């Protein structure tokens, strides 16, 4: 052993400590960074979930009036946004309850402001004195349903 015993012990301790400290620091930074990233992502997910659900529960439609045009195969309906946020009607599905026949209609311009109304005209061959189920879907995937009987 031709190294000075005293000097070798001191250097080894410093190097080792540096190595250990560096390793711990790197690992710590990695762990903290990973944890932070994870938490931010969770925060964003939480934000999105809360926002979506918040909007969904505040979205309300009143199917205010439905009337069958007796001069033709047309059904008119007036929707009233009684919720606190604007919404967008995307589809209307009308089902003949007696025969289970379904008529689907999509809408791309179905926005309604709060307290606003939207009048829709759907064309299909309705049958007199027959119950129909009307299902309204919104962009937020809320669904509102009513039933009417044709005159």
């Amino acid at each position, binding site marked *: 052993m031709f190294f000075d015993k005293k000097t070798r012990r001191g250097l080894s*301790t410093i190097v080792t*400590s540096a190595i250990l*400290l560096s390793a*711990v*620091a790197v690992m*710590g930074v990695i*762990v*903290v960074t990973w*944890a*932070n990233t994870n*938490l931010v992502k*969770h*925060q964003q997910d*939480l*934000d999105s979930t*809360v926002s979506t*659900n*918040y909007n969904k*529960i*505040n979205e*309300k439609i*009143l199917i*205010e*009036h439905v*009337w069958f*045009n*007796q*001069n033709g195969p047309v059904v*008119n309906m*007036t929707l*009233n946004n*009684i919720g606190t946020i604007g919404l967008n009607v995307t589809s209307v599905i009308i089902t003949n309850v007696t025969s289970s026949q379904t008529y689907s209609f999509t809408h791309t311009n179905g926005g309604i402001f709060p*307290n606003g109304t939207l009048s829709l005209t759907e064309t299909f061959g309705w049958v007199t004195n027959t119950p129909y189920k009307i299902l309204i879907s919104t962009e937020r995937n809320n669904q509102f349903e009513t039933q009417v009987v044709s*005159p």
Partner: protein
Amino acid sequence: MRYRRGLSTVVGAVFFIIATTTVVTYITYSMNSIDNFSQSVIVSESQNIDRGRESITISQVGIVNNKFNMTVTNTGSLPVKLTRLWVTNQDGVTSDQKADLNIQLNPGQQQYNIGQSTAITAESTASYNLKVVTERGNISTFQVSPNTSTRIQLITPGTVAPNTDFKIISLITNNSTTPNNIANLTPTMLSNVTLTLVDGPNPANIDALPQGSTAAFTWTYTAPVTSGGISMNASYTGAPTGKFVLSNFTNQLSAEAAAATQSQWSQAASRVGILISGIPNPIHSLTNSLEYAKWGIGIINPLDRDVEVYAAGVLFTNPNILNTVVGVEPGSGIGLWSKRALGAGANMAVWEGGSTPVIIPAKSVGQFRFETDFSSNTLYESIVTMQALTSEGKLTVQYVISSDSAANYPLINAFYSTNAASPTTSWTYNLNNIPGNTNDKLFNMTVQNAGADFPSKIKVLILVPSDFTDVQDYTAGSGGWGVASIFTNPDGSRIIKVETTASTFLGGTSKTYQFTADTPSVTSDKLYVFQTTTIYPSFTGTGQSELASALSEAGVEIVP
């Protein structure tokens, strides 16, 4: 060693702080997000609860001025804002109508006249469904329809007397089992005979008849003059087909009423007859006193053929009464008027046509008039018999007159005149060629005292046949007459009762009473008689009887 321990602690502390801060921040943020969401859920649920606590009722709907008149009540515990009214006409194919509303209602508050200021129109004969929408999204509906379950009841008298007023009541009940008003309920009433409506329906209509309610409507009619069955049909405007009720009753005089008003002259003449056209009574019997007594014998001919009159006259059972006979009609050259002494028992004033009888054309009245002077020197109550020999047979009628030669005895004539200004020169018992369907036709009835002053008022009774309507007192308190009372008899005829105002009717004067009436509408000539009786309420004492009465039965010919 001291340095190593310090560095490690610092590094560890840094990491600990970083980790702790991150975790705490995340947890805090999550808690806040969840709290916000919870608040949102609470708010949303609160809105749902409010929607559930909101309640409105359309308590009544009517139609006024062709618009809905609606009453809405806030029956919930929260203020309500009405935002829209929808109306669906269930009878037609017209588009549904809507109107925006902006009506705030506090709990328990009612709002009236909703719909009156909108552009939505309504008809009482149609069925409607009304829908009111609130801002929170609640809907209240109401049905307005005449086409609903109803019950109609009709209350009529069992029997009515001709030409008298009677009432009919119609009860209409809304029997609907759902909230349903009959809006603008207007009753209808039909009859199988022509009735004169005096009043009604009362009320004319009602804005709305709510479910379970009953409305009563009253009519007052005058029964027809002609007896017969009457059938009434009660319903309402817009009623479903077949929704009506019938009630039958009889229009006839009760036996008592018929007996009380028995007079052949209350209706149109139907057979040939002799009329006591003019009989003076009482008679002042001083020879050649102030004026002559006026007599008339009428022959009424309602037949479609002519009637020939060969002779007419008045037989006096007391031969001491008649002194002079002055023929007036027929005039000279047509037969001959004369006084004929019949011995101790009687004498007679008579007209005889010989070979040229008087022709009374179909549906007309003929009259024989003469004046007499009397020569009695004492009190007589004498039977007089009017006679006429016609182509339809011998006609006879009797009367009784009172006469006296006393200086204070009156001589009362009763007759009609064509000129009210000079009645004694235009006296007649034949009012002919009077146009039918004429309103307010004026008639002149004259009472003349051709004797001494008459210490009594004179009351006159004039029976106007039932076909004449709207009989009015034209004189009405003037010309020495009081205001007349006009009564309608059960058979529809009317009796005018009028009295002179002065307590003494001066000798040598006359008073003409005038009345008006709407003449009947006729398609061919129709004959009537104005039966006129005088009464002297104060004509009492020796030789003076309240039984004395001058009489005039004037023939009235109504032409189309």
